[in-house]
C-alpha cells in the first residue's frame, strides 16, 4: 500500500487561516454571499472589498435555502482573485456521495478551508417545495472530511486512490440557541469529530457569550480548536430589534438597541411621513456608522475573553463595512505568516 505524502510543513493544511491562528494572531474571517445569478463579476467586486482585510472568506452555500451560485464555483473565482475562501457545505442539498465528490473537486481547484453546516431548512427559501437530503448531519460531515484528510478514506471506508483533499475544517456553534446548556457539549462533539476551527453565531451579548466561554474553558475545548466569535454590523435599530425578536439563537441586549436608537435621535421627533429622502439618507448613514462602531466595540470586548482566537465578521450584502470595522478594531494590516522553511 502506498501512503500519500503531502508536505504541509507541520501544518494540517497550511492555509492562511491555519497559519495565522497557529502563530497566535487574532484571526479575522469575512463572508461573501454568491449572487442569485451566473455573474462572476459580482464575486470579483465583493472579493475586492474584502481583499487584504480578512484571513479567509466564507462563501455561503445556498444561504437561507435560496438558490445562488455554488460555493465552490464562487470560491474558485475568489481563489483567482487572491483571497482564501472558506467553502461552506450544508447537509441540506447533498448526500454523502455528492458532498465527497464536490469536495474532491474543491480541493483540486485550490480551496483549503471548509465550514461544515447542517443548513437552514428549505421551508424559508425560494424552493419550499423541494425535497431535502439530510443524509448526514454537520457533526458527521466534520468526521467524514477529517477521515478523508487524515485517514485517506471515503465515508464508506474505501481508500482514496491518490491525493486526499486536505481542508482546514471548521464547524459552527450557536451558543445561545436552545437547549442552551447543551451547546458547549454539542461544540465538544464537533471538536471530537475533528473541527479545527469554530465560527459562532452572531454575538451581541458579550456577557452571555462570556458565560458560554466559561463552560467551554471548563471543558478545555478552547485548547483543542480555534474559536472565532461571530460579529456583524447593525444597519438600524429596527434590524437590531428584528434579530432580537425573530432570529433564533441571537441575543441583542437592550443597551445596543438603545445605542442604535440614540444615534437616530436628530430625526426622532420628525413624523414618519414628513421625513424627506435626504433625512432618511442622513439618518441611515448615522445608523450605519453607529452599527460599525458597535461592532468594533464588540470585537474589542470579545478579544479580551480567554479562548477567543478571532472574529468572523458577517456583513453580507454590506461588504464595504468590513474595512472600517477591521481598521477600527486595530486589526489592520493582517499579519503575513510565512511557511516555515522545510529541512
Amino acid at each position, binding site marked *: 500500500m502506498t501512503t500519500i505524502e503531502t508536505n504541509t510543513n507541520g501544518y494540517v493544511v497550511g492555509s492562511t487561516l491555519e497559519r495565522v491562528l497557529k502563530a497566535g494572531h487574532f484571526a479575522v474571517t469575512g463572508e461573501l454571499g454568491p449572487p442569485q445569478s451566473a455573474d462572476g463579476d459580482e464575486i470579483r467586486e465583493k472579493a475586492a472589498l474584502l481583499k487584504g482585510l480578512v484571513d479567509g472568506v466564507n462563501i455561503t452555500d445556498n444561504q437561507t435555502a435560496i438558490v445562488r451560485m455554488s460555493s465552490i464555483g464562487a470560491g474558485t473565482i475568489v481563489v483567482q482573485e487572491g483571497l482564501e475562501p472558506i467553502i461552506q457545505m450544508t*447537509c*441540506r442539498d447533498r448526500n*454523502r456521495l455528492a458532498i465527497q465528490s464536490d469536495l474532491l473537486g474543491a480541493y483540486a481547484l485550490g480551496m483549503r478551508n471548509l465550514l461544515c453546516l*447542517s*443548513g*437552514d*431548512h428549505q*421551508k*424559508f427559501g425560494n424552493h419550499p417545495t423541494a425535497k*431535502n437530503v*439530510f*443524509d*448526514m*448531519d*454537520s*457533526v*458527521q460531515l466534520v*468526521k*467524514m472530511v477529517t477521515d478523508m484528510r487524515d485517514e485517506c478514506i471515503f*465515508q464508506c471506508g474505501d481508500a482514496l486512490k491518490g491525493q486526499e483533499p486536505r481542508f482546514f475544517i471548521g464547524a*459552527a*456553534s*450557536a451558543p445561545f*440557541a*436552545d*437547549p442552551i*446548556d*447543551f451547546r458547549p*457539549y*454539542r461544540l*465538544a*462533539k464537533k471538536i*471530537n*469529530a475533528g473541527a479545527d476551527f469554530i465560527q459562532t*453565531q452572531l454575538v451581541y451579548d458579550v456577557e452571555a457569550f462570556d458565560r458560554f466561554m466559561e463552560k467551554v474553558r471548563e471543558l478545555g475545548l478552547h485548547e483543542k480548536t480555534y474559536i472565532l466569535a461571530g460579529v456583524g454590523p447593525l444597519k438600524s435599530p429596527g434590524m437590531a430589534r428584528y434579530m432580537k425578536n425573530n432570529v*433564533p*439563537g441571537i441575543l441583542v441586549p437592550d443597551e445596543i438597541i438603545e445605542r442604535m436608537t440614540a444615534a437616530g435621535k436628530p430625526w426622532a421627533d420628525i413624523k414618519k411621513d414628513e421625513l424627506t429622502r435626504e433625512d432618511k439618507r442622513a439618518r441611515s448613514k448615522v445608523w450605519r456608522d453607529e452599527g460599525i462602531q458597535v461592532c468594533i466595540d464588540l470585537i474589542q470586548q470579545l478579544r479580551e475573553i480567554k479562548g477567543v482566537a478571532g472574529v468572523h465578521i458577517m456583513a453580507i450584502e454590506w461588504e464595504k463595512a468590513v474595512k472600517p470595522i477591521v481598521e477600527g478594531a486595530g486589526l489592520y494590516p493582517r499579519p503575513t505568516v510565512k511557511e516555515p522553511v522545510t529541512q
Partner: protein
Amino acid sequence: MIIAERKPLDEIKTLVDDAQKVLVVGCGTCVTVCFAGGSREAQITAASLRMSTKLDGNGKNVGDVTVQRQCEWEYLDEIKDQVEDADMVLSLGCGIGVQAIAEHFPESWVVPGLNTTFLGIPSEQGVWEERCAACGDCILGLTGGICPIARCSKSLLNGPCGGSEAGHCEIDPDVPCAWQLIYDRLSSKDKLHVILDLQPPKNWSTSRDGGPRKIVREDLRLKAEEA
C-alpha cells in the same frame, strides 16, 4: 397508526369524473380511528358526491361500503361483487388500501379519496402528530424514546441545530423541537451521556432509500404450507 386526511371534494369529483357508478370503499382500521375514511366518512363522501354531481346536472350513482381492513385480501373478497359492479372505486383507505384494491381487482379502476400523511398518534382530541418514518433500523433506544428521524425537521442524529428556540423547531413555532424533547427527557433520567457520543451516519439502506422493502418470514411461510 397510519394517519390520513380526506382529499377536498372538488379533487375527488375530478378523479371520479369519468364514472357514472362509483363505489366509495371505507376502511375500518387506522383511517377510521383518525376520522378520515371509516364507514361514517364513506357515507358522508358518497352522499356529498351524489348531491354535488346532481347539482351539477350530472348526478352519479354513488354507493358506499366499508371493510374491516382494506390491506388484507380476505376482507376485500367480501366486496368483490360490489367492486365489479361499479365503474370506479373511490378508496377511503390509506395508500396501501388503494393499492390492495388495484392489485386484488385488476379489472376495476380505483382512485384515492385520501391523502395518506404519516405514521403517528392522536396526541389530543382532533390533533394528530407524526411519530415514526419507518426507517427500518430503530434508534429510539438512543434517544429516550423520541424519534429524531421523524420528528426533527432535519433528521439530525447528533443533537439540536442552531434553530431550536424555546422548545420549538426553526420551521414553525407550532412544531416542537425533537432535540429539545430528547434533551429534556435524557437529562431528567440522568442519561445525557448517551447523546454525547458521536452517532455515525445512518445506514439508510433499511429505509426507503434502499428501494421498496419486503420482509419474508420463512418460519411463518413454512407453517402456512404445512397447514
